[in-house]
């Protein structure tokens, strides 16, 4: 009976272990599956095509070039590898500039033939039309089967998913925003957190410690939206005032809020690590005439190094993945930041803010999942590399 019970418990433990692993695996697979569709989605809006004059040597435009052409930032074909020829942008609505409504027909039945005619006449034209307005014998080149290239995503400098005709899914502004905010947060919270941990573990009296430790642990339980609100009401105006900024919602505000949020984790984990340093080791140092400070930085911190690194990893993990508080205080401008005092937008904030408005299966939706994958990869790389470093130092 007893043996049977033990087997049962063992089985239950095995089951829960495998369920957890399978769940994690499934989440990762789901993430990457949804994201992989991104590079199969068309560069331009679904159901539309781009038409060029037959004589135009340009056969290939990437997403960013298309956007620049339609925004009027590129005005000549030689800028995208064509001949010296001004670009003439023609959207559906622009057709009325070339033809009267009678010519186009009462129910626009003549659009296909007119569009074809227009394209053949104008050497510098780029035509953007829904597929159904393209005649079978269209007299021009069509660029409709282009799909988004990895370069457009990984090297893209703009995130503008609602841009027409070519939505911009550039990773760089969001990635850099995330890195700036997280880096700032970790630079602020790590020294401070370790200092507090040292104080609590080695210097504070029992009474102070017993008061402070639960208080700090309590901080970890405050919902992030409350931190965001605090940041919005206190930190953002403070930064705006003290740096004389047009807006206070900056990367720095995000860093400060995140630093405050990451502190309890860093302090608790680092302090626990320092308290595991055997009393005998500490005494050995003191007995050799080392002062308390020398003992702390020569023995206790090196001894607790692996614990302190895991504190740092957990802190970074929290900073990189944190969504709500950052969304509230960073200003959410998806532009590549140059200083900490500019608005930025982080990857998690983008996912949270935009997933609701992206239709399932669209390029936008897949791009958001791709962002999720990037986030996953970043945290994975960080934890693996830190584990590697701390292991290497230990041997």
């Amino acid at each position, binding site marked *: 009976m007893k043996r049977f019970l033990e087997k049962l418990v063992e089985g239950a433990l095995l089951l829960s272990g495998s369920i957890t692993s399978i769940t994690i695996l499934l989440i990762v697979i789901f993430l990457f599956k949804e994201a992989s569709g991104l590079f199969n989605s068309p560069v331009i809006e679904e159901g539309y095509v781009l038409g060029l004059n037959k004589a135009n040597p340009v056969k290939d435009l990437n997403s960013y070039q298309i956007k620049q052409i339609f925004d009027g930032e590129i005005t000549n074909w030689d800028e995208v590898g064509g001949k010296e020829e001004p670009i003439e942008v023609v959207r559906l609505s622009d057709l009325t500039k070339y033809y009267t409504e009678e010519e186009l027909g009462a129910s626009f039945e003549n659009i296909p033939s007119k569009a074809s005619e227009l394209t053949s006449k104008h050497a510098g034209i780029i035509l953007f039309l829904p597929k159904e307005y393209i005649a079978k014998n269209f007299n021009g080149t069509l660029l409709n089967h282009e799909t988004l290239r990895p370069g457009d995503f990984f090297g893209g400098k703009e995130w503008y998913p609602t841009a027409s005709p070519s939505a911009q899914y550039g990773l760089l502004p969001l990635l850099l925003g995330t890195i700036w905010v997280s880096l700032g947060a970790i630079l602020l919270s790590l020294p401070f957190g370790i200092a507090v941990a040292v104080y609590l573990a080695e210097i504070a*009296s*029992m009474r102070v410690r017993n008061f402070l430790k639960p208080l700090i642990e309590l901080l970890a339980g405050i919902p992030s939206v409350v931190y965001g609100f605090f940041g919005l009401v206190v930190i953002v105006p403070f930064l705006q005032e003290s740096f004389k900024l047009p807006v206070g919602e900056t990367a720095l505000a995000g860093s400060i809020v995140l630093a405050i949020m990451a502190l309890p984790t860093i302090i608790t984990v680092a302090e626990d690590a320092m308290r595991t340093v*055997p009393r*005998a*080791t500490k*005494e*050995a*140092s*003191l*007995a*050799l*005439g*080392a*002062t308390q400070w*020398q003992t702390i930085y*020569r*023995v206790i911190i*090196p*001894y607790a190094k692996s614990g302190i690194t895991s504190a740092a990893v957990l802190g970074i993990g929290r900073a990189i993945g944190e969504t709500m508080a950052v969304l509230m205080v960073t200003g959410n401008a998806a532009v590549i930041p140059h200083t900490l005092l500019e608005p930025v937008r982080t990857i998690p904030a983008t996912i949270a803010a935009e997933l609701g408005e992206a239709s399932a299966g669209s390029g936008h939706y897949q791009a958001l999942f791709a962002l999720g994958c990037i986030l996953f990869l970043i945290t994975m790389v960080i934890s693996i590399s830190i584990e590697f470093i701390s292991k290497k130092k230990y041997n």
Partner: protein
Amino acid sequence: MLTIDAKNVDFYYSDFHALKNINLEVEQNKVVAFIGPSGCGKSTFLRILNRMNDLIPGTRLTGSVLVEGQDIYAPGIHVDELRKKVGMVFQKPNPFPKSIFENVAYGLRVNGVNDKTFIEERVVESIKAAALWDEVKDKLKKSAFALSGGQQQRLCIARALAISPKVLLMDEPASALDPISTAKIEELIYELKKDYTIVIVTHNMQQASRVSDKTAYFYLGELIEYDETTKIFTNPQHISTQNYITGRFG
């Protein structure tokens, strides 16, 4: 001048009166053994001599303890200076998680020695003095944890010797070791006597009689008897001492 001179020492752990009116003198270059049953206060007294008990909150001491004529509990005494003069070896080997070399160099480094060649010389000297050189000379860069327990304990002795203390306190230094390592430590104590004053706490009667010049017997916080080792072991004055050394209790 006496190396250690304790007068009317009373010691308390909060409310617990751990040592009662202890008077004890130790001359230079002698080995003194503290014996007595567990909880008798011998380790507490040992740790008074380098103020290691300061680390325990709620402890209190009255009376005076002089080391080389200086009251070590007087205000204005720097504890780290004192501990440089009074080295300590603990019950369990407690090397730092560093290399063998760095373990021995540690005491020098924390005391502000930066001269590389001096540190190297001193480390080698200390390891030789601790009778460990032949075993570790090829692996000074290796982690101290790679050594056996007995080697680790001798490393801890080398570490204590490196800063040239006047007094060496040993708190049951061989209790966690095998007989062969114990014999080596005892031999070492005999050698070290030439240069250092040694106070050793031990539970092992034979060890006390083998290594020490004088023996102090503690019981329930009191110093019952303190005399030449030969006298204590052959002709104790107190019945309690006799009972203890003959193994009737303790």
